């Protein structure tokens, strides 16, 4: 409204969302140019978590590289170990015993569940549902307890390694796991009642951040974000690894490509993961958990190259490994799912959006900042 002849002009401001921001999960920064409450331009600014993994790995032997790789993505650490092990097994021609494949499947699904529950904490907090955050985090901690039981560590497990897994499951583990899974299934009903079916949540996410299938394909989007646009693609079905070929599970897909679709894909994946872990416990074959590789102090891997991939909680995770016949890693390049999501897709979706939805978009796309930077 004009007041006595003065003209109201709009002013563009530059705001920094992060790295220190209550809505930022992970150390990431977005430079926003806003006019009023609308974002005109967003520039993603990664690099706060860059440790130079690919360079540090080149100084390591294949055995020494093993504690490094789980730290590439702190929220979902086991997939990075899995692709590392798969790459070395392919280059060196190692066979993995069937029991180890089942244990790997179980560890990977537990990691997926803990990543999804962490997402639920962050997402619910972002939209104002703090209670769900508390529930989800506490629920996740029971899975972390199970990891503690089999691997000895809460966060960085270093469990999946070339040749199998580091140790077999202890007695009493299967019962505790069944109890935790039953608890999660009960809780999922509560989450639905309070969060996913909530009118306020629906108003906040319906139609927000729409990514069409054609755009998703153009930007190299994989994982849950692609499945939310209607395309059913999952590396576990396309190129089964570990024991997934023997598992019976569905790949949840939604249409629409908005935040609601992405949230529901994650919600349904949690159910499927519970289903897969139950099958693993039922069908687990007997045998050893590890096939011993050659002398770990001097393990020359034949020269060659390979690309291995798997489905992490966020999408297609892969590693391109090049070996030169010595015992040191020549090149290991990680393909991480958050790379296209966190930079170009985020910048595109944020244009024209309200400031209140910046943190929302970051979490809706399930962007993991440590992955992007490595």
């Amino acid at each position, binding site marked *: 409204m004009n007041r006595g002849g003065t003209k109201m002009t709009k002013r563009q401001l530059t705001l920094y969302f992060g790295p*220190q*921001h209550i809505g930022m*999960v992970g150390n990431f920064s977005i430079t926003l140019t806003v006019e009023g409450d609308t974002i005109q331009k967003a520039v993603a600014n990664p*690099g706060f978590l860059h440790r130079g993994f690919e360079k*540090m790995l080149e100084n390591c032997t294949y055995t020494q590289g093993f504690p490094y790789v789980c730290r590439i993505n*702190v929220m979902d650490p086991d997939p990075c170990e899995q692709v590392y092990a798969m790459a070395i097994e392919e280059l060196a021609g190692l066979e993995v015993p069937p029991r180890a494949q089942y244990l790997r499947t179980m560890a990977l699904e537990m990691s997926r569940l803990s990543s999804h529950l962490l997402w639920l904490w962050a997402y619910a907090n972002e939209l104002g549902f703090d209670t769900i955050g508390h529930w989800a985090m506490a629920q*996740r901690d029971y899975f972390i307890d199970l990891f503690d039981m089999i691997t000895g560590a*809460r*966060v960085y497990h270093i469990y999946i390694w070339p040749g199998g897994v580091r140790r077999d499951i202890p007695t009493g583990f299967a019962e505790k796991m069944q109890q935790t899974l039953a608890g999660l299934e009960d809780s999922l009903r509560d989450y639905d009642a309070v969060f996913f079916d909530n009118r306020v949540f629906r108003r906040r996410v319906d139609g927000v951040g729409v990514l069409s299938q054609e755009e998703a394909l153009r930007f190299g989007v994989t994982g849950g974000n692609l499945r939310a646009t209607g395309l059913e693609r999952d590396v576990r079905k396309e190129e089964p690894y570990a024991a997934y070929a023997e598992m019976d599970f569905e790949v949840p897909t939604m249409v629409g490509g908005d935040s609601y679709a992405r949230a529901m894909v994650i919600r349904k994946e949690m159910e499927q993961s519970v289903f897969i872990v139950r099958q693993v416990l039922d069908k687990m074959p007997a045998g050893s958990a590890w096939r011993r590789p050659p002398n770990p102090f001097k393990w020359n891997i034949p020269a060659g190259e390979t690309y291995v991939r798997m489905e992490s909680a966020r999408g297609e995770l892969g590693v391109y490994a090049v070996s030169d016949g010595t015992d040191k890693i020549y090149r290991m390049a990680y393909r991480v799912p958050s790379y296209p999501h966190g930079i170009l897709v985020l910048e595109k979706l944020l244009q024209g959006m309200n400031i209140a939805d910046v943190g929302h978009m970051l979490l809706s796309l399930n962007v993991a900042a440590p992955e992007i930077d490595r």
Partner: protein
Amino acid sequence: MANVIRVVRTYTRGDHRGLILLDRADIKKALKDPHKWGEKYSLWVTYFCTGCGIIEIPPVITARWDAERFGVKPMATPRQANLFLITGYVSVKTLRAIIITYEQMPDPKYLVAFGSCPIDGGLYYTSYNTINHLDRYLPVDGWIAGCMPRPEAIFIAVTKLWKMIDGEMVDGYKRYRKNIDYYRKNQERVLGREFIESIPPPVTVET
């Protein structure tokens, strides 16, 4: 942790049973120095996810481990916080951000380094983008070792910090002002002169 809460007496009123947690000596102690008492039991942490250690912070601040019973809760802005937890390794870009954040926090403030990476570089000591010794760039009041430290370790650290506050042993913020040249020299070496010159000088308020 056994020293944290002292149940002095229980009482029963109908079918309600209660606990008395402070006795006269405690109350006298608190009234003698209410400033320390208030500060200890309301350590508000600046919410900044600096490194991989951040993965243990959500469990600590939520229902299962519940840091709020220690008075510790996350705070959105550094201006309203008095504890800065550097969770994990510090890359060069992050160092820039944490220097600005630390200087935005009002005195008295405490900085606790969480994990083995701020101590000596940890697993990333050969990295070209992570610093190795945090206390050369910012004043550290306490260290929590581990990769990753467990939530129990964080609570033990908080209780130790209380004892240090009682004994007036945490003067990191005073050391920073006194030795600002030393810190600035190290910061400039890593971050460049242009950035250091762009930081506004810390305002000193005499207490």
